[in-house]
């Protein structure tokens, strides 16, 4: 059953078109990884799903209802939560407060402060520290935890491993794997680490220049197909890189 349907959305940033007619379907409980080079439109797609960027055309259906023009906070209350690019924690508030805000304003469910701390044990000693002072990995854990606190049906995670040390990436993905394996919420993950995406996702989506170039199960593609789609090279002479 598909929980989220995106039909041919177009998003512009002022004069620049960031998404040129993107359609996709997300099934309940599945993990979808979005990959692609800088400027491919991944973040805009995530923001459009979360309601932070209202599309200029097209339609978004959530559990069959049209939410295209719904604003972000209403979507959070309806069951779509995002950990945005750059984490965007509230720097002068404590980790606990960061988590509580989403808990107070999101859906009710079994993701509570305790459960988030069980899933991300690295946050336990930091719970009353200011979010501004955390390291990259801690921030990411807090940001994902914050999104989980809203008890979403669809969890959107932008740039999961960007800027993290390998150890921190391992930690975050270990926690995410547990959530994935419960198969309760759908996850859409923007991930720069290609092999990580291929290993973690049920499906991958490769974007370039505001369009989906490749979509399907990781097993369906060769490494070259993915790398080419990644750099937006289509049947051109191979790049020098």
């Amino acid at each position, binding site marked *: 059953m598909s929980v989220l349907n995106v039909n041919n959305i177009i998003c512009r940033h002022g004069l*620049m078109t960031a998404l040129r007619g993107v359609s996709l379907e997300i099934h309940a409980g599945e993990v979808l990884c979005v990959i692609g080079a800088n400027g491919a439109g991944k973040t805009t797609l995530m923001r459009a799903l979360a309601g932070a960027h209202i599309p200029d055309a097209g339609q978004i259906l959530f559990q069959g209802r049209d939410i295209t023009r719904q604003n972000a906070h209403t979507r959070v209350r309806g069951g779509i939560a995002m950990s945005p690019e750059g984490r965007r924690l509230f720097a002068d508030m404590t980790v606990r407060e960061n988590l509580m805000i989403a808990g107070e304003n999101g859906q009710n469910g079994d993701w509570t402060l305790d459960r988030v701390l069980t899933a991300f044990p690295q946050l336990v000693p930091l719970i009353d520290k200011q979010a501004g002072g955390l390291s990259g990995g801690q921030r990411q854990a807090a940001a994902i935890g914050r999104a989980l606190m809203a008890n979403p049906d669809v969890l959107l995670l932008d740039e999961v491993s960007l*800027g993290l040390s390998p150890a921190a990436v391992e930690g975050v993905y270990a926690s995410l794997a547990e959530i994935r394996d419960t198969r309760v919420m759908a996850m859409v993950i923007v991930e720069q680490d290609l092999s990580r995406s291929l290993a973690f996702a049920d499906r991958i989506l490769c974007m370039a220049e505001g369009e989906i170039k490749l979509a399907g199960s990781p097993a369906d593609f060769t490494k070259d197909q993915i790398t080419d789609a*990644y750099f937006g090279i289509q049947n051109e002479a191979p790049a020098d890189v």
Partner: protein
Amino acid sequence: MNSPDLQSHLVARRLRKSYGSLKALDDVSFHVGKGEAVGIVGPNGAGKTTLFGALAGSFPVSGGQITFAGDDITHDPAETRCAMGIARTYQVPRPFLGMTVFENVMVAARAGGGLSAAPATDHAAKILEQTGLFALANTPAAALGLLDRKRLEVARALATSPDIILLDEIGGGLTEAELVQLIALIQSLKDNGMTIVWIEHILHALIKVIDRLVCMAEGRVLAAGDPNAVMQNADVRRAYLGSTPE
């Protein structure tokens, strides 16, 4: 082509810039020789645009030193650096929206180029011609499309008669034909002796013009040198693609 005989023109030593606890620039050293063309690549949030801001004087740095043609310019404001010959473009174009294209370029020619009215008009007209904006000279900048705004960024920077031009992602969003024109323009600037530093995601465009490539990630320089060698560098591939797929 990090040839030692090239006189280093613009040099940044151990630049640091923090926003709160975020280190946008973490000990970045960078140099470009006179007449050289250097490309900068790196993932989002690598600090490329911050480096440009620091070099052009858009904000004070938290530490480090910048010299231009031997002068310490670390604490000079943007306008002084512009008058000395450093011009920049913005990644998201920032035209003066209340003015026409011609007026935008005129301001740069007069203020940054130090020209008086008549020569500035000639200079501005020439640059409008060169950047393909002449037909739009009297159009209000607010009415321009993205592509023309990017052209205007370049035109305005050129109007200040710079020694060195810092180009920030001017190729993004262009069609292949437009990209070819852009590459030709930048190549001609280089042929005329202008020093070029170019941030660009479109690698195949970049590689046609540059002598040297710098790759940044997380506010640091990962690798610098021959473009092909840099792109083969394991750190660089990891920063771009994560670990490469097996």
